[in-house]
């Protein structure tokens, strides 16, 4: 009952948001004082040359027309051209997305694998040692700038202890990339049985993913703990105790089940944090992902990659949140029927 309609409504509701997103990125690209024609024409251009450039780029046309050209370009996958690499931004992106994806997934896995159990145990054994640790993480973890955590990790594990490789990309020098299947080196190496590449990929991935994972662990733990505490105090959990259900069933069945549903929404939030963290972590560890690409473009005042990056991340973010909503609707019987 209603699931199809629920999905349809949610999907339709995303369209205006996506429209708004392109409006903003359009404004960022074309309406702000940094004149793209000026940039493209170069510092030695004459006024005539600049005007000619503006005409070529359509900057002399009315704003709605410009927007329409921008939007139709974006829809065709045209994010402009990078002045640095001289290639279409989309092409540069696609080449770098797997690196970012690998880092993001690994970090999310770490954050969730540690954050959820930590939050649950903290709530169940309230005021116990784990709870105190989780609260320390909750307050301290969110106050640490991600780039600084990364630098600390490099100093400690690479310089001091020597257990981590130098923070320079996805593979140690001299190791060949595994045959590309998914683009995720660790996965590809595993699938092709390439032990050398697998070891190197995981080793390189260790510090960046721990850094990024740590940066979102605090919010995950905090929310799981809060949700779990609220649920443990709820009437139906009291009723379950009064019905004589065993503790295990109550805590890890009834309560956890109810707790994990709102935690699904956390994936969206976590992803937002991860995208932000990605940028700085990729810089600290010279990780060749799209965040790194965007920042490198900053230094050369190359606008297209940055704005393309912002748009790309926003669209992915919107789609992830949509997916989260849909999954939530499927899992929680209460949502669908509203």
């Amino acid at each position, binding site marked *: 009952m209603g699931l199809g309609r629920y999905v349809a409504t949610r999907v339709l509701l995303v369209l205006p948001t996506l429209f708004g997103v392109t409006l903003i990125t359009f404004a960022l690209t074309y309406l702000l004082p940094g004149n793209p024609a000026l940039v493209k024409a170069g510092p030695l251009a004459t006024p005539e040359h600049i005007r000619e450039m503006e005409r070529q780029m359509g900057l002399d046309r009315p704003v709605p027309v410009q927007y329409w050209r921008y939007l139709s370009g974006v829809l065709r996958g045209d994010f402009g051209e990078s002045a640095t690499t001289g290639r279409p931004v989309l092409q540069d992106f696609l080449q770098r997305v797997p690196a970012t994806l690998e880092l993001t997934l690994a970090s999310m896995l770490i954050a969730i694998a540690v954050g959820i159990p930590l939050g649950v145990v903290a709530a169940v054994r309230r005021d116990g040692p784990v709870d105190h640790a989780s609260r320390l993480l909750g307050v301290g973890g969110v106050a640490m700038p991600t780039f600084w955590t990364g630098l600390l990790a490099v100093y400690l594990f690479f310089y001091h202890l020597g257990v981590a490789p130098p923070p320079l990309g996805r593979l140690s020098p001299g190791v060949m990339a595994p045959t590309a299947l998914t683009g995720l080196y660790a996965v590809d190496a595993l699938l092709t049985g390439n032990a050398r590449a697998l070891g190197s990929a995981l080793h390189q991935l260790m510090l960046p993913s721990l850094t990024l994972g740590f940066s979102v662990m605090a919010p995950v733990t905090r929310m799981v703990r809060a949700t779990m505490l609220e649920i443990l105090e*709820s*009437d*139906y959990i*009291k*009723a*379950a*105790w*009064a*019905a*004589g*259900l*065993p*503790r295990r069933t109550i805590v890890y069945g*009834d309560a956890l*089940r*109810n707790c994990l*549903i709102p935690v699904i929404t956390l994936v969206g939030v976590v992803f937002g944090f991860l995208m932000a963290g990605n940028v700085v972590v990729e810089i600290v560890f010279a990780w060749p992902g799209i965040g790194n690409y965007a920042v490198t473009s900053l230094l050369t005042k190359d606008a297209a990659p940055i704005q393309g990056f912002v748009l790309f991340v926003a669209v992915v973010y919107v789609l992830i949140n949509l997916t989260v909503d849909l999954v939530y609707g499927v899992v*929680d*019987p*209460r949502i669908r*029927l509203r």
Partner: protein
Amino acid sequence: MRPLLEVENLSVAFDTDEGTVGAVDAIDLDVRRGEILGLVGESGSGKSVTALAVFRLIRPPGRIAGGSIRFDGRDLLALPEEEMRRIRGAQIAMVFQSPRTALNPVLPVGRQIARLYRLHQGCSAAEARRRTLEMLGLVGIPEPERRARDYAHQLSGGMCQRVMIAMALATSPRLLLADEPTTGLDVSIAAQILDLLRDLGRRTGASIVLITHDLGVVAGLCDRVAVMHAGQLVECADVRSLFREPAHPYTRALVRSIPRVDREVTMEPVPGVVPSLLDAPPGCRYADRCPDVLDVCRTVKPARSARARDHEVACYATEAARVAAPRG
């Protein structure tokens, strides 16, 4: 015969940053076999806490500070947790107020009942299911087959309460605690629910403790009534004498506050507010609201004394008046 439940000198305290809250202050209470006992008081009088204490479900910062609870002669407070768990739900069951929130939102209601059969009576899945449907029918739920698959949010408040009752009675408990079972329900639905409770109680021979703030409900349903005020038990009597001769000043005020159709007397709310239970002074906690207060009331808690058969009251003023003007 020995009462089914004997609560003696029970105290429950909550430790807060500001001090200790004496939510229940040394109460004595018996529940006899097969009877319906009304436990009455304003909100915050300790009724629900008393019920939770019987289940031994007072959680920190709360704690049972003293006294004993005997169920069928066994001292519940001394039982190991595992044994206590086997009593919960199986022999003592609870119907909660706000049934909608007392049902697990992500489990179909049928499954919530069925698992109790499996847990407490070791039924097979099929047998548990069969009995669940039977029970749902018994509590007056139409189309039990379909309703069993519903989630709590798909049922009306009255239906949810019927499910809660089915859950509570599923394992034929000998004692049923019903905490404000009709809160939030329409008057007519509330009446049906109460009738249902009484009928099922009679049929199974279970004792019922009906916790409520509404003396009107008590009058129509209960055999005996215990009145609580601010964590203290002030009066306990069979329902008839309580209404005919309420002895404690608080009970009198309560009785006066019942809306009456038969009299042209406007109802008067009980004057004053429930006193703070935080580091409460010794003595009777009604003293500050009481029109008949004596000096001694503020220093020493009055003991309970029998006023007639099945009628006990804890009040110096009442006692003094009775001694001064003996009957007959």
